[in-house]
């Protein structure tokens, strides 16, 4: 695990020239979890995208300690957004294989099917991602987290679409990751359990 510290300082995002939320500050160290909450349209996704490098801040920004190297930080983080990043016409196994290889991780078929089994997709190795249910698609994308072994997890509404067992599993999964020295930044609009568990709780407010 990598011990970079993520600083978000006085950051604001905009949409159509108007700032979306009041400035946000956060220091996230490995071994900690931060949860971003807020109503619909409060800019949770925009904030997370900006942190992941898929958007930009209009005020303030992020930097990293000790060496302010964005690229090396990106190497140690993984982002799962609203669009899950699964190719509809590829099988689960192929999707996972691509995600691993593009991140520079060599895998064999056994590791990949183990990865799928961990998220409860055992027996779906050769199903097309298109044929999965919404919850299963979510599980497929979450299986990347376990396989890629990155320090920072950036998750946008990870509990949406998951059933009760899925939520429990993900919750345990995140707790385990934190206890092993990982860090997670996630958005969740109404998950009391994760709100209580969070080391940092950010409520996005109108500017």
């Amino acid at each position: 695990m990598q011990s970079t510290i993520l600083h978000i300082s006085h950051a604001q995002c905009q949409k159509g020239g108007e700032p979306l939320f009041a400035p946000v500050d956060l220091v996230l160290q490995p071994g900690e979890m931060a949860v971003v909450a807020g109503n619909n349209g409060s800019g949770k996704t925009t904030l997370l995208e900006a942190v992941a490098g898929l958007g930009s801040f209009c005020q303030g920004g992020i930097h990293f300690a000790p060496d302010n190297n964005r690229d090396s930080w990106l190497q140690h983080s993984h982002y799962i957004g609203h669009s899950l990043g699964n190719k509809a016409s590829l099988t689960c196994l192929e999707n996972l294989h691509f995600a691993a290889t593009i991140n520079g991780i060599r895998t064999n078929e056994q590791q990949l099917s183990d990865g799928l089994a961990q998220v409860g997709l055992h027996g779906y190795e050769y199903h097309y991602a298109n044929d999965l249910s919404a919850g299963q698609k979510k599980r497929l994308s979450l299986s990347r987290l376990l396989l890629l072994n990155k320090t920072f997890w950036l998750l946008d509404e990870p509990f949406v679409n998951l059933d009760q067992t899925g939520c429990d599993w993900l919750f345990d999964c995140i707790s385990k990751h934190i206890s092993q020295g990982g860090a997670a930044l996630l958005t969740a609009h109404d998950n009391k359990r994760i709100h209580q568990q969070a080391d940092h709780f950010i409520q996005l407010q109108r500017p």
Partner: protein
Amino acid sequence: MNKIVKFYHEMGSPPSFYRITGHWLKPLLILALLLTVYGLIDGLFFAPPDYQQGDSYRIMFVHVPAAWMSMFIYFIIGVSGIIAFVWRMKVAEAVMMASAPIGALFTALTLLTGMLWGKPMWGTYWDWDARMTSELILLFLYIGVMGIYSAYDDDPRKAARLAALVAIIGLINLPIIRYSVEWWTSIHQGASISIMGGNSGIKEWSMLRPLLVMALATKFYYLYSMLHRARSYLLRTEQNKSWVSKQFIEN
């Protein structure tokens, strides 16, 4: 020297750009109008008829300045596109986007007056020769720059950066188009002013004078139109800055 540096820095910041250029607008417009009136009267009534083309060559007094402007303005767009893309200068974005409509207008004017000139000279309104074709492609480049900007209307900053990228690509592409089209075919007459004074070059001062006056007039008009639009552009994109609201409280 210090004054120039200071001026340069002031022009880079939207509020002072807005303030300084505000004083230039009226003189520029008046100058442009006066020169146009003088140039056209001189060109239409006092310049002697051409021994080959008769009176029809007088179209040149609007066609040629417009053609020069169409290329000159694209060059400005390309250069300000580079500045906007590399240094993210807001004023450069404003200049780029403000130049595009007037440039497209001059390009369309070049094409249309070219057609009106072509009919009596070659007997046809349109001919796929090198210059007309590349002028038409130039019009596509202008439309492309404006099109990409208006497509991203929800985020003006991103729109301007993408438009700058399109403008830069066009700037690189322009000589290639020019060369390839020329290679393709060419029956157009030579350039109107040739330094070597070739067969088609205009040597007569009384013909050259209105042409140069019109060239100046279109340049001044371009400056007026561009600055006017650039100022509006800055007002629109900086609406939530305090300097914009100050402009309107004073009035």
